[in-house]
């Protein structure tokens, strides 16, 4: 499997990254290098191995469903790049003639 510049553009779009033309070429070469090395795993027959998703394999960690103190609004907004006293502010999403 080899990755083309076009593939890199697609991955960048999925990852919400904008790459310069130089970066696209650089990452294409590096990703190919790394992915080629990762092909090594195909030497192993893993048909009868179940995936390990977690080193301690804990399951179903529950807690009591009780309300506890959480971050208040002021604190939650403290690091916002743009906010009024109530909301995070972002560029308009729905374009149109609204006020």
């Amino acid at each position, binding site marked *: 499997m080899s990755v083309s510049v076009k593939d890199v553009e697609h991955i960048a779009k999925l990852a919400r*990254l904008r790459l310069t033309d130089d970066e696209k070429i650089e990452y294409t070469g590096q990703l190919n290098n790394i992915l080629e090395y990762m092909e090594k795993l195909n030497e192993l027959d893993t048909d009868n191995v179940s995936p390990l998703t977690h*080193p301690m394999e*804990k399951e179903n960690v529950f807690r009591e469903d009780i309300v506890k103190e959480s971050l208040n609004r002021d604190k939650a907004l403290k690091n916002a790049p743009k906010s009024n006293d109530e909301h995070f502010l972002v560029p308009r999403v729905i374009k149109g003639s609204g006020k």
Partner: protein
Amino acid sequence: MVSYSNFSEKLALIKSGRLTLSENVDFFLQKIRDNSDLNAYNFVFEDAAKKRALEVEAKIKSGNFGKLAGLVVAIKDVLSLKDNPLTCSSKILKDFEAVYTATAVQKLLDEDAIIIGKTNCDEFAMGSSNENSAFGPALNPVDKDYVPGGSSGGSAVAVAAGLCDVSLGTDTGGSIRQPASYCGIVGMKPTYGLVSRFGLTAFASSFDTIGPFANNVEDAELLLSVIAGFDENDSTSVEHQYTPDEKNLDEIVIGLPKEYFGEGTDEEVNKSLQEAISTLKNNGVKFKEISLPHTEYTIATYYILTTAEASSNLSRYDGARYGYRSENVADLAEMYENSRSEGFGDEVKRRIMLGTYVLSAGYYDAYYLKAQKVRRLIREDFDKAFEEVDFILTPTTPGTAFKLGENIDDPLKMYMLDIFTTSANLAGIPGISLPVKNVTGKMPVGLQLFGNRLSDAGLFAAAKQIFSLL
């Protein structure tokens, strides 16, 4: 200032009045200023540390004080301390201030430790040299032309250069043990889940651990014993009580995995390890050759799984709720793209790209699922090995510290340097790096000891005795 070689000596000096804590903190602050070229700290809490020194000193005098009273600690800048900066050495979190305190850090404060500052690291803990930092590289105090290792480079430098007593780092694939080895100090990665990750900025959540750096094994164990413990705020936290172990070296067998002493290991490291092993043998320590047959697959497995987890974890940096937002935004999509592209550094972007690729439609089974299966095989290697031996001894790294800039253009080469450390994170087991004498060169060499999951106390007991014999 009167000197001490570990925390219990320090506490005795404070109690006897031969050392005042304020004088001690001033000494560290001056030394941090004198060694600013090492770039160990992103932030130094000068006023807070001085104030706290007075408070803790009064507590010690009153006889009612915590287990770490007077211990001066530096913490890696990926750990939250409320109302203080938390940058992860990234431009994307340049002005971020933590809104709560990490559980591990709170436990230090509860036991009267003094937090002197936050240390430099690779951006979001991604790197093996501390060169991927928005604050610039930290330098190895043994020789400033060399990297200190990473990603917890600043935490290792701060301890090795005497800019604090002990420090906390994080280890996702060797980020504590490798810099400890490169700087010639003790660094320990606990069993996954033993220390709560609450308040630790996530990189790869099924790998991330928090652990100590120190100049000696006793102080490292003390620090770990305080930060360990179940936390309801971390669903992967293990219900296990840390209890010190008294195990004697003559009751144990140590495994030597042949895959870790082969041609991939530099002569300098091999020779130094052999010398250390023969010293231990002469002191009656029993060794047995073992095999960890999937060792050659650890790097591929590790980098597929951790980049996948990272691409998911780092999707939260979108410029909307916190962190850097690009000035140049016409609409929402552009806000996401430009904020992330301008805010993340090169290595972080590369890992997000790689992780996004291995998780993307059509490649998920071939890379991500495959790697999860191999992860099980790697863990089984260790499970089998621990049926035969109590601990496993290896070099921490295949070579000693390299020069700044030497590997920066070849990411795969840099990844390969993690060959002996990533296995512990894949398997969830604890590992500790201890300094050993370099018999042919000048840069420090590290000996790594692995234990089985939740054998952390036994690992410390063995490490203490090994450290004293070497």
